[in-house]
């Protein structure tokens, strides 16, 4: 990424110590396409422990898009332990309010259930599909950018400042999405609209952040929270997501996901 738009470069200029959890390229790593959401959450949790041991400070988690969901889920599982706060950027939170593609939440859930159980299964999503899907979110805009690029090809200086970003969005920045992870994400995002109603399900148990110890004070200039909270584009603090009970399981590792609408305890009664 160009230094002008690089997040780590920008944060470093602002006096921050930036770390990145790199999941690599699943399609080119042994067992990569069999990874589930729990593998990603375990990796983030291990990273938190490492950063804390290395720096002596509780790190902030900054997740963008689905990364913000990971941050929330890890904070829930850890009961906020070792985490100074959370910032999410463009993460989906309230599906009822968002109405993606204009689809009401009540219709979205069965549609996602069908897609998850009958179509996705454990199939992985190749990187080109993610890239293409992103372009299809705004097909006219994507086509216009491609035409502009061709028309300006004679002017290298005019293209240079956007070239890294263009290459990233046009394919180089996308990696395959492992099937189990994709399924877990669809479950977590849609079941009970959890990010708004509070808590998160891990291995059939409901976790929330109520009762978590207050976070330490750091002068970062980003929102400092008594507990990890969700801050992002038009999102604000979601107090409702922080209410309820915090229950930790006897087991050690994160277990997330399952089939939507499948077996297991119905946790709708939890807050």
């Amino acid at each position, binding site marked *: *990424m160009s230094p002008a738009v*690089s*997040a*780590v*470069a920008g*944060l*470093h200029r602002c*006096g*921050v*110590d*930036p*770390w*990145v*959890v*790199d*999941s*690599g*390229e699943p399609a080119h790593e*042994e067992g990569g396409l069999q990874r589930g959401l729990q593998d990603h959450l375990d*990796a*983030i949790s*291990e*990273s938190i422990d*490492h*950063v*804390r041991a290395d720096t002596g*400070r509780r*790190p*902030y*988690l*900054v*997740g*963008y*898009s*689905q*990364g913000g969901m*990971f*941050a929330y889920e890890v904070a829930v599982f850890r009961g906020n332990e070792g985490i*100074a706060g959370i910032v999410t950027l463009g993460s989906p939170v309230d599906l009822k309010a968002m109405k993606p593609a204009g689809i009401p939440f009540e219709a979205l859930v069965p549609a996602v259930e069908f897609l998850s159980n009958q179509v996705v299964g454990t199939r992985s*999503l190749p*990187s080109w599909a993610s890239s293409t899907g992103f372009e299809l979110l705004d097909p006219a805009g994507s086509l216009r950018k491609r035409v502009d690029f061709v028309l300006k*090809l*004679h*002017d290298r200086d005019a*293209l*240079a400042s956007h*070239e*890294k970003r*263009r*290459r*990233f969005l046009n394919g*180089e*920045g*996308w*990696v395959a*999405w*492992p099937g189990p992870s*994709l399924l877990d994400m669809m479950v977590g995002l849609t079941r009970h609209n959890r990010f708004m109603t509070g808590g998160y399900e891990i291995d059939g148990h409901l976790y929330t952040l109520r009762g978590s110890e207050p976070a330490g004070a750091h*002068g*970062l200039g980003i929102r400092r929270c008594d507990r990890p909270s969700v801050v992002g584009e038009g999102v604000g603090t979601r107090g409702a997501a922080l209410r309820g009970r915090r229950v930790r399981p006897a087991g050690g590792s994160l277990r997330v996901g399952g089939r939507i609408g499948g077996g297991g305890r119905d946790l709708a009664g939890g807050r």
Partner: protein
Amino acid sequence: MCRYCGGVASGPFHDLGEWARNALEVARFGGLDTGEESSPYEITQQSPTHRLRRYFPDSDPGRVAVILIPPMMLSRRSST
């Protein structure tokens, strides 16, 4: 400045030449080489499912630590 003739670069023929040269570079390498360098980093933790990268590892200590978490379908290059 025209890189070939040494004179002032202008005119449709110059633009056409530049366009063809850049188009060839895009066709061969997928894009234009801008000469920009990625931020320096070191891998401080590694497992079968992740690598933890610390950027600007030679920075002065005492900074607030921030862990960036990209979405699953984007590579870590999205933040670096």
